[in-house]
């Protein structure tokens, strides 16, 4: 037991040392998540409680200052992150579910099913999603974070569906699928146990990009003023800061705090995604191998040069004699 633990710890350490980008990404994302989900441990104030004078600059008491309404910015950031992250996850799961159902059925069943589903995908894809979301949200009036997640999910699945369809098509023609078909496996088993496990890397990376996209879009919609101004999320914080002209009066902390939170989460997720791409496509992981190759090549060139110079030198000497 103990040895298993130590070896897995060792492997983990090795993995992080070999993938510094993944390590930084995971630390950023985990850090933000821990701060948000254990928010009561890191602050004494409730996010919506009026606890000080408006627009107080950062101090020991309120490390990120206060808002126009005299609320503690730090506790708003960490409490608000909960909703922002949840919306990202819910929308991400929704998008992945739609994309998987549409993409795998289109790719696996082919024929008329594929034609209809691909047409649907392409149509939803060319209708620009943000304007569509704005239209939906403005008809629904101020919408709660959950509704925002659903709107994002309903308009953003086509891209993933296309990627997954292409991947399914390429897997569909491999030998093991034909073998499974000959063995008479059921359609359900084919889809879930033969096709899907071969797409885990691609599913993982599309899930992460969707979550990034959803968190950003939620913040955008709320910043524009389509969210519920009474809820505490990063987007609503930015909206309120903008509404109370925090920029003009120089209350930088009110803008900076949610911005940094959003940026570090997005950067962390993007770094993780970047490493997944590198691991699943070794051609892109060229960094180390190519660096070594270049060093060797430089050495080789130097030797050749030295040799060539030596040669011409001796020839010249020979010619002179």
């Amino acid at each position: 037991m103990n040895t298993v633990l130590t070896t897995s710890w060792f492997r983990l350490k090795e993995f992080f040392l070999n993938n510094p980008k993944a390590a930084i990404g995971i630390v950023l994302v985990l850090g933000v998540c821990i701060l948000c989900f254990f928010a009561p441990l890191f602050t004494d104030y409730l996010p919506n409680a009026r606890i000080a004078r408006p627009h107080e600059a950062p101090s020991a008491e309120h490390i990120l200052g206060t808002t126009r309404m005299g609320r503690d910015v730090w506790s708003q950031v960490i409490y608000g992150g909960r909703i922002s992250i949840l919306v990202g996850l819910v929308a991400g799961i929704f998008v992945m579910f739609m994309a998987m159902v549409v993409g795998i059925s289109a790719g696996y069943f082919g024929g008329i099913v594929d034609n209809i589903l691909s047409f649907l995908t392409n149509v939803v894809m060319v209708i620009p999603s943000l304007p569509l979301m704005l239209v939906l949200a403005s008809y629904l009036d101020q919408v709660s974070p959950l509704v925002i997640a659903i709107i994002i999910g309903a308009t953003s699945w086509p891209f993933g569906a296309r990627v997954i369809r292409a991947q399914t098509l390429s897997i569909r023609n491999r030998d093991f699928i034909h073998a499974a078909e000959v063995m008479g496996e059921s359609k359900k088993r084919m889809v879930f146990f033969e096709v899907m496990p071969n797409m885990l890397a691609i599913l993982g990376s599309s899930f992460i990009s969707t979550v990034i996209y959803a968190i950003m879009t939620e913040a955008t919609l709320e910043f524009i003023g389509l969210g519920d101004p009474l809820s505490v999320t990063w987007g609503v914080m930015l909206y309120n800061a903008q509404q109370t002209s925090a920029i003009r009066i120089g209350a930088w902390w009110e803008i900076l705090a949610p911005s940094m939170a959003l940026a570090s989460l997005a950067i962390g997720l993007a770094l993780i995604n970047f490493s997944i791409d590198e691991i699943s496509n070794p051609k892109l992981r060229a960094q180390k191998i190519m660096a070594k190759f270049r060093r060797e090549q430089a050495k080789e060139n130097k030797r050749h040069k030295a040799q060539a110079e030596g040669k011409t030198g001796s020839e010249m000497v020979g010619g002179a004699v």
Partner: protein
Amino acid sequence: MRYLLQRLGFYILAFLVAVTINFFLPRMMPGDPIQSFLARLAQNGGQITPETVKALESLYGYSTSTPLWEQFFTYLQSILHGDWGMSTRFFQPVVEVLGRGMLWTLLLVGSFLLISYTLTTLGGIWVAWKRGSRFDSILTVSSVIVSSVPAVVMALMLYFVFASDLGWFPTGYAYDPALDPALTGEFIQSVLYHMALPLIAMVLLSMGNIMGMRSNMINQLGEDFIVMGWAKGITDRKVMFNYGARNAILPVITAFAMSVGGIFAGSLIIEIIFNYPGVGQVMFQGMVARDYPLIQGYLLMMTLMVLSANLIADLLLLALDPRLRTSVL
């Protein structure tokens, strides 16, 4: 030719779907714009007569007396005739209001596309060529980081630091309001100056495209025809551009067509934050005032933009990829 006709047919269908969505959405939604307008009017002490209701119905293209399918065809007809309704915020035809903003947006987005795609494509080619070098690791990682910053955050930060605090850049407008729009050097200079910071924000946000070009190019550089090029003793530059990049750029063009919607969406945020009077800013004002005809017109116009970008991409691909010209799809 057949390929092009097929694409064209698809675009017309897609546009019809967008029009249909636009038609049915307000009729399915809980909030009825006419009722909410009447409620607002009553709140402000306005008189509501049957004529008011009738005028509003014709303004929004709604009616309780005519059947739905008849309304739909009337709606479709007016859309195709360029009658997109009246803006209730600006009291002008929607097409006019959007067209005014579109001029600035197209200027902004057009310059953005030119700068961003030149930079990221050349950068991606170069980085793939030099893959594994220190230059490569620094540029790729920093472009991933910079481009993953949310647009709202990037724009707010740049605005706060460079426009509001340091005052190096203007805090709004497309040109100095003291100047008359004319083709003078001073006016053009003012336009460029006002465009600079929004453009910088958009270009920074798009730096991630380097990664796409890089991975395409790296995949191409592993192909046999590249080795063939080397073996023939062709210059580096020719292998890089005529052999590698020409093939690597094809997926970038497809991706460009797909991302146009996102680019306009990004310009919406940028315009709102930098007070740039483009179509996004107009849309924002309309949205605050719940100007439904304008909001719907915006969706239609953006769909048209995306569709025309797709058409341009199709033409470009036909020109660059001879395989498409002969394939019978």
